[in-house]
């Protein structure tokens, strides 16, 4: 199929020149069945239009850079195969719900602040010295939090969340999942330090359980579950005199 073509429509926006984003259409060779949307963008940048801007790196679904809206759905473009869209045109837009910097590049500073606000590190009342060796932890104990530790910060869940779209003060899916990851870790004792952020009005209680975050997650993390579990946990702590767990 040497002559097969695919049409890519990509968002173009340069804040120095454009008032608002527009779509630009490119027709490029669809030369290999293994091609993904990111390959198409790379072809455009190398051979057609060097000014198209987007982020990418590992192209194996783990660095989390290349999230974009593909035909209206948040996707990692390294993992969105052209053959699944062809012969229809593929519309590639920046992730929803974020300020736009340029073309397909969004501003995710907000998430970086939220990530820090949930204290995503092990908090202990007393550190054990390095010479004391590792904390003992069974694989079952790891399974408690494993899926929440698989978040790659790709921002697809924020792009899918209408609550975040309506109110970007909302802590959001990934940050809550990561808070849960530490709260469920048998080595951690920092729940009470994280509660003021996650149980705040802009924390889990803002979520109305649309559930779309978990649907779009490319890594099988279930942030909606993390949020609902956190709601139950914080309620139990409020209702029960001594809290449910440290």
């Amino acid at each position: 199929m040497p002559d097969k073509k695919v049409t890519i429509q990509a968002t173009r926006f340069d804040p120095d020149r454009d008032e608002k984003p527009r779509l630009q259409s490119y027709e490029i060779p669809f030369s290999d069945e293994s091609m993904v949307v990111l390959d198409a963008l790379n072809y455009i940048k190398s051979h057609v239009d060097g000014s198209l801007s987007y982020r990418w790196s590992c192209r194996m679904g783990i660095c989390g850079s290349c999230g974009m809206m593909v035909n209206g759905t948040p996707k990692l473009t390294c993992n969105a195969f052209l053959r699944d869209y062809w012969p229809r045109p593929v519309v590639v837009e920046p992730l929803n719900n974020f300020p736009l910097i340029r073309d397909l590049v969004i501003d995710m500073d907000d998430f970086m602040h939220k990530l820090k606000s949930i204290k995503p590190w092990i908090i202990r009342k007393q550190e054990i010295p390095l010479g004391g060796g590792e904390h003992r932890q069974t694989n079952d104990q790891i399974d408690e939090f494993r899926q929440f530790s698989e978040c790659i910060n790709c921002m697809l869940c924020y792009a899918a969340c209408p609550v975040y779209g309506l109110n970007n003060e909302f802590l959001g899916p990934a940050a809550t999942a990561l808070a849960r990851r530490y709260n469920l870790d048998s080595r951690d004792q920092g729940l009470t330090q994280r509660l003021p952020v996650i149980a705040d009005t802009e924390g889990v209680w803002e979520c109305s359980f649309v559930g779309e975050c978990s649907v779009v997650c490319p890594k099988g993390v279930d942030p909606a579950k993390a949020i609902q579990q956190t709601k139950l946990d914080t309620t139990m702590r409020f209702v029960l005199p001594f809290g449910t767990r440290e």
Partner: protein
Amino acid sequence: MPANWWTRSRRYFLYVVREFTALPLALWLLWLLVEIKRAGDGPARYSPHGSAAFVVFSVIVLLFALYHSFTFLTLAGTIIHLRFIDRPVPASLIVLSQFALWAVASGVIAFVLIWFGR
């Protein structure tokens, strides 16, 4: 966000429908309060509202209530996080127990109503 955001995908739409089911439910419950108030005047002066339109409305609300309860109870498997002798309790078991509790509670209420209503 544009006002029509919930029409953009099927799943957003179903979510809005799920949330919307609470509204007619609330209306029906308000009506029930009015009926209870009226029934308080004594059996002699009370005649229940029985128009066909109201029956149809009630049936629809019943379906909504069932749908809402079903989705709510199914979510228990996602939300509740229990351990029993160092093993996580499977989500299906939690969901099943929720439905069982629901059935038992409905039975008890039905029993009370019928027994004392005789």
